[in-house]
């Protein structure tokens, strides 16, 4: 009944669907000050307290901004002013506590207190910077990236 062209079209749509459903909510904004922008699917959103942050979201804080996130595995991540970070990857099984978290910091400051992911498997949380990959075995640490090249590109 369905023509080959329609079949092809349908299969293309089905193939594209998983890409759209990729970005899951993974954390909640628990602290917020100043101007903080979320970039989601190429659109800019103004961050709000209590808002859910999705996998693949990019977070940009202004010169007066800061943000604190609570991930679903209880990992806490905060960024200070003039910071740019991306939530590259997050998965977490509520019962087994398996999964991983990858956060990219292009610029600025990040502080982290790792949660159940690291408790379950040391190294399950990673922070990627332009110069290094940091694997967290436990538990609390901070990173500062002063990236003047990145700033020139951003402005």
């Amino acid at each position, binding site marked *: 009944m369905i023509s080959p062209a329609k079949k092809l079209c349908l299969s293309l749509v089905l193939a594209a669907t998983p890409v759209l459903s990729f970005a899951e909510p993974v954390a909640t904004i628990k602290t917020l000050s100043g101007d903080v922008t979320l970039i989601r699917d190429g659109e800019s959103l103004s961050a709000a307290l209590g808002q859910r942050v999705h996998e693949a979201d990019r977070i940009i804080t202004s010169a007066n901004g800061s943000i604190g996130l*609570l991930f679903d595995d209880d990992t806490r991540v905060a960024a200070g002013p003039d910071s740019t970070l991306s939530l590259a990857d997050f998965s977490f099984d509520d019962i087994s506590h398996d999964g991983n978290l990858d956060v990219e910091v292009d610029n600025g400051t990040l502080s982290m207190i790792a949660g159940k992911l690291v408790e379950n498997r040391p190294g399950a949380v990673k922070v990627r910077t332009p*110069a290094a990959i940091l694997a967290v075995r*436990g538990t609390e640490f*901070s*990173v500062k990236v002063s990236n003047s090249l990145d700033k020139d590109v951003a402005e």
Partner: protein
Amino acid sequence: MSRSASLLTSALLLTTLSGCTVYSGAVNTLGPDKPVSDIAATTEGEVLLSTTPPPFCPALVETYMVMPEEGRTGIVDVALVNGDQLVLEGDYAAAEVAGGVATTFTGDEATMQETFGDAIAALPPAPIYVPVYFYFDSDILTDESLADAQRLYQAVLERAAPEVVVTGHTDTSGSAAFNQTLGQRRAEAVREDLIDIGVDPQTITTRSLGESQPVIETGDGVREPKNRRVEINVR
């Protein structure tokens, strides 16, 4: 004869000592009056300063520091882009990477606050986990747990953007299906209490794990007060 020789000698000496300025000065007077090209007038513009950083001041400086922890030792493995590996272990263990070269050091409270203070101040408070217990085959809190629950409900109201995850559990007395329902009833009872004191219903999640996750392992069909509980997670 000797007179012309001494004249030549003194001329050579003068040229040497003066660094040829006498000679070159004389030659330059033969050049054009304005030694500036005509093209310069049409091409001169604003002076532009280079925006790329000078090579001796690296464009990328990174600092990593393990924060102090009570009763635990913080460890972070650092893999640099150039292939070098570092392990930062213990309170204030730190490294600075400038121009791709890492230098390790041990910081202190003051350097930590100066470098990362704004981010540290923005860290959310830790989530709270409290179990509350129920009477046998009921969704009524025990007298002991009632006070714990009231304290916890107040903590919810004091939080910014609170979320509450309520998970009901039972002991193994009765069928698994019955206990699944009983666990949900217990979770819903806590949810109702939270809504009564003013917590936004949309921020409360309830679920039941029935008899599947006991705190104390028992055989099937065993009454165990410690397993008749709701775990309240305030986030």
